[in-house]
């Protein structure tokens, strides 16, 4: 096990993690927003660095763990979510990653897959939540009206939920699953292709500790 010092450990864009945050990558600890947002920043940065050749990571946009919370309450307008994408055309992205915190006890992951015209939802505890699809469709509609002044074209768009999504077999690994879902999605994988499951979690926690400390994603295919 790596030695974890206290204080600032790593910086990626505007995101930072302290020793107290990455301590949570030790076995059986719950993850917090800082670890997940840092991992999201690393995924975004890798995507921005790479080209657009076959096999390269997709063009990714990442909304932090507070986005969905704001979308639910106080909602798009009052939270001024239109400002979140002021400098980016989300409709031109391949995938938009949206980690979701549920009741301060569970992490899940949504994705607006622009490339495949799907609203995706991944839950390592296997619960499909219709409300997530509704909220994100509402977001797309409002964002389209705000930025393009036209209705969002929902034709051919599907709600995606896969039985193949890897599942956790305990009450603490969901945050690690969410980070791995995001990382795999950003490389264009479908749930059927996700190359990890519960057995890999102790190793992935150690690997994430290393990745965050070194600010470098290893990824399964590299």
């Amino acid at each position, binding site marked *: 096990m790596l030695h974890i010092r206290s204080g600032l450990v790593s910086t990626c864009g*505007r*995101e*930072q993690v302290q020793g107290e945050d990455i301590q949570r990558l030790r076995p059986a*600890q*719950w*993850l*917090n*927003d*800082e670890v997940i*947002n840092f991992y999201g920043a690393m995924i975004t940065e890798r995507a921005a660095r790479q080209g657009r050749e076959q096999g390269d990571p997709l063009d990714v946009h990442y*909304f*932090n*763990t*507070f*986005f969905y*919370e*704001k979308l639910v309450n106080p909602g798009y307008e009052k*939270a*001024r*979510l239109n*400002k*979140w*994408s*002021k400098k980016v055309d989300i409709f031109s992205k391949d995938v938009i990653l949206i980690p979701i*915190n*549920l009741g*301060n*006890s*569970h*992490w899940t992951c949504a994705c607006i897959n622009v490339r495949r015209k799907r609203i995706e939802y991944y839950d390592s*505890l296997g619960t499909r939540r219709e409300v997530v699809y509704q909220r994100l469709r509402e977001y797309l509609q409002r964002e389209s009206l705000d930025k393009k002044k036209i209705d969002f074209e929902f034709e051919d768009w599907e709600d995606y939920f896969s039985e193949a999504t890897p599942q*956790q077999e*305990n*009450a*603490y*690994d*969901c*945050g690690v699953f969410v980070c791995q879902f995001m990382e795999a999605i950003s490389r264009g994988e479908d749930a059927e292709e996700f190359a990890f499951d519960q057995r890999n979690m102790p190793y992935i926690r150690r690997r994430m500790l290393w990745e965050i400390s070194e600010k470098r994603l290893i990824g399964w295919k590299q």
Partner: protein
Amino acid sequence: MPDVKPDIKERKPATQDESEVPDGKVQITVILGEQTFKYAVKPTTAFKKVFETTEKQVAASPGTLRFHYNGQRLRPQQTLEEIEAELDEPVEFHAQLEQIGGA
């Protein structure tokens, strides 16, 4: 013995109305759930004080609130100038408590 008067100079209130924002300063509204806090700061002043005062007001431990502007995380040493805040409309910072999850 000289008469030592206690320092009764009134402290400037932490919250103030828009009308009272002094010249050269910008009003920032910090929103935390249902609560709002207003500050007048110079475009070149670091946010540290704003963050610390907000944390005190809500009895949060120092450094535990997360502050965002337009979805971008803010750091204590940053300034309005540095983040290129749009000053032609109200400047709103959103403060959040830590989120955790496992099961």
